[in-house]
């Protein structure tokens, strides 16, 4: 005899208990500390901070621990926490020209003032599994030396001096904030950049890659990629001046792209821009390519109908928290809607059968 | 800033605001219904109901227009302290407050655009009193007809013609609130 399914509440509690046990794993193995995650899985921490839109390595590390290493789940935890935080004020724009760089490379010039600094990169490592790492060894130490460089001018500034690259006009207007106002289209570049810097790394990478394969190709060169620490300043109205409130690590990428021009306008290179929390250079480069592709209208290019040129398509689908939530919601019961479809299909089949029968008679 | 501008806020903001919102929601969803509303006190001549509605709905993201009757230093200070909303000209207002006469002509407020009819002003009017006698109201939220004393008729009729654009009105008196959304059709009996 049928009895309706009951006990959802108990099932949920039991599932949560089981999850907690699985998260911890074998208790004979030492538990991970937040500090271990923060220090040794720093690039995962960086991604969670970037896509979670919250610069806090300890909280990001905690989220990674709680989410069992599922980074999208960790980003979700950070986002949900972030929305509960009060807004005390707004910082001044960070000045990346004053960055203390750990890494700074340009693909467009062999050498340049300030020099090329490879920094801690995977780039020229041979991707061979290092079995020595499996055994806990002693801590590697890198050589250091004092730098004699005090400023690292931007590559795009060199080009701009000669008018070879399009000038970005500074403005004092506050950029919109998609976490405070609903998205409206057309969005405009500041909102696009905010969307992309929070966007899913995989999504932004794939859209960027599609431009390289010819879907709105824009001939990008990495004009400059820099990673390092910048000071965050905030105006304190009561004091009447700005104070340092801390330091963050960011990755900035400026691409130099195909030129525009006409008979009347001299030819000029164009730019794409990426800026992301933490050491996140794949994301920053991808962001710059997608930013550049989305600027087609402003730069007088043709709409090739490519996904990367479609602002609404890119911005509406870049957020992995929105995407994963909606995707996974199809796990929820849908038997009411399904039932109405079932009734309809039965009705249509019945009508077709009747019509066939009539025709046969 | 005068000391009296610092008082008159909610005692328990989340709870007071939740009750006040339900009163406003009910009023807006059922034109003609008069709801009690309490929680805040603004400087004279602002009614307690108006002060409560403002604390419930206004904040730094909502530009406010002050009609002459309510454009006093005390009210400006009170808004600066409790709400933090910018005071703006009529054409930029998300909310407009005042007595009916000083708010007129209400055509000076934004009525939204055809793509975003929600980007229109909400006008909060302090009236002498509210009672369910007067103009006949018809439209969404009203089962057959309702009645409400209104400070005007023609202005509300003209507003309803603009639908889906138009203004939405919240009427306040003492510690009572009623509302007249743009969908309500007003007739004199």
């Amino acid at each position, binding site marked *: 005899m049928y009895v309706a399914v009951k006990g959802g509440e108990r099932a*949920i509690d039991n599932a949560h208990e089981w999850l907690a046990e699985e998260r911890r794993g074998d208790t004979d193995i030492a538990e991970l500390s937040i500090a271990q995650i923060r220090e040794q899985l720093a690039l995962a921490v960086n991604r969670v901070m970037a896509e979670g839109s919250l610069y806090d390595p300890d909280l990001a590390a905690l989220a990674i621990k709680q989410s069992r290493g599922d980074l999208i789940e960790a980003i979700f935890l950070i986002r*949900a926490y972030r929305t509960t935080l009060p807004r005390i004020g707004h910082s001044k724009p960070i000045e990346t020209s004053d960055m203390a760089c750990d890494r700074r490379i340009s693909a467009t010039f062999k050498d340049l003032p300030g020099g090329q600094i490879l920094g801690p990169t995977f780039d020229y490592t041979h991707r061979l599994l290092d079995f020595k790492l499996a055994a806990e060894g002693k801590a590697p130490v890198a050589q250091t030396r004092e730098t004699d460089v005090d400023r690292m001018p931007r590559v795009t500034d060199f080009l701009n001096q000669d008018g070879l690259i399009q000038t970005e006009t500074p403005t004092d207007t506050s950029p919109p904030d998609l976490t405070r106002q609903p998205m409206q289209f057309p969005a405009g570049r500041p909102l696009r950049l905010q969307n992309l810097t929070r966007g899913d790394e995989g999504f932004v990478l794939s859209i960027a890659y599609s431009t390289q394969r010819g879907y709105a190709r824009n001939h990008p060169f990495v004009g400059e990629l820099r990673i390092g620490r910048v000071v965050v300043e905030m105006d304190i109205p009561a004091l009447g001046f700005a104070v340092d409130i801390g330091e963050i690590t960011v990755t900035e990428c400026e691409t130099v792209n195909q030129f525009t021009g006409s008979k009347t306008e001299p030819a000029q290179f164009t730019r794409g821009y990426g800026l992301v929390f933490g050491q996140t250079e794949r994301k920053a480069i991808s962001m710059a390519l997608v930013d550049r592709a989305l600027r087609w209208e402003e730069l007088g290019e043709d709409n090739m109908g490519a996904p990367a040129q479609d602002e609404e398509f890119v911005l509406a689908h870049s957020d992995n928290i929105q995407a994963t939530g909606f995707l*996974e919601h199809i796990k929820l019961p849908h*038997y*009411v*809607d399904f039932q109405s479809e079932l009734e309809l299909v039965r009705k249509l089949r019945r009508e077709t059968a009747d019509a066939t029968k009539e025709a046969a008679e | 800033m005068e000391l009296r501008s610092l008082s008159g806020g909610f005692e328990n903001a989340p709870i007071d605001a939740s009750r006040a919102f339900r009163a406003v929601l009910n009023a807006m969803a059922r034109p003609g219904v008069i709801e009690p509303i309490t929680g805040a006190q603004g400087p004279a001549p602002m009614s307690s109901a108006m002060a409560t509605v403002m604390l419930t709905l206004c904040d730094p993201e909502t530009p406010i227009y002050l009609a002459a009757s309510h454009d006093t230093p005390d009210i400006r200070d009170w808004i600066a302290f409790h709400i933090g909303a910018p005071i703006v000209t009529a054409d930029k207002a998300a909310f407009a407050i005042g007595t009916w006469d000083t708010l007129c002509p209400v055509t000076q407020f934004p009525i939204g655009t055809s793509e975003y009819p929600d980007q229109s002003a909400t006008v909060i009017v302090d009236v002498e009193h509210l009672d369910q006698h007067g103009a006949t109201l018809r439209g969404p939220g009203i089962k057959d007809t309702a009645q409400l004393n209104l400070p005007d008729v023609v202005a509300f009729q003209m507003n309803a013609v603009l639908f889906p654009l138009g203004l939405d009105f919240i009427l306040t008196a003492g510690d009572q609130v009623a509302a007249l959304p743009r*969908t309500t059709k007003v007739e004199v009996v």
Partner: protein
Amino acid sequence: MSDYNFAYLDEQTKRMIRRAILKGVAIPGYQVPFASREMPMPYGWGTGGVQVSAACLTPEDTFKVIDQGADDTTNAVSIRKFFEFTAGVAVTEHTGEATVIQTRHRIPEEPLREDQILVYQVPIPEPLRFLEPRETETRKMHALEEYGLMHVKLYEDISRHGNIATSYAYPVKVEGRYVMDPSPIPKFDNPKLEMAAIQLFGAGREQRIYAIPPYTQVISLDFEDYPFDPSKADHPCDLCGAEHTYLDEVIIDDAGGRMFVCSDTDYCAGRQADGHRGRLSPIQEAAE
């Protein structure tokens, strides 16, 4: 109660949502954009409804949550617990006792009263979205009241299937102006959209809130020669015998055996408590 603010959301967020709700009520059927917040449950799992409920609840409320008509489905339980914890409100499974009801995919069978609010969780608020994926385009269509595309779609259904092939999320026109998605309720529920309670719709991921005030005209789109038909399974409930309710089909064995039961579990239980019995009622003393 918890350390979080009453009903979880901060006051500024609630004010923003409350303003959107009021504009929604003032422009019935129009989707008001709002800056939806990340909630501690995933997008697509009722975050829009949860934000609307959070903005509406007062400490005096009695809250009910249903998913597919049932109070005991896992997501309904999860949302109910969330508000028990963050707002400390009383909860109930009885439609008649509730003042605020959050729902996914159903309207309760028991007619709602003037002192009640029904909050719908909405996945895709735009009724034209599956005909035109671009927000910039659909917004223009609503602005110009250009709903030809929807009628063409329904008409194509008829020429292909002999029937309008939409069985849930069936589009309606509100107060003669906006075409609106009533959320994925079965079309059986559409006639109930004209009711005494306030109906609020929240779409979190899509950042839209819309509303139907009480006693507002809501018409399901149709054609003169193909009038709207709110049909349902042609069976009585096998537990309570009701002939007028929306039914779930339950497979009871692997030989094609099935039974039909009310999807509104509270309504069905109420009828059984009143002595109504269906064909397969487990309550033995009532067996006829």
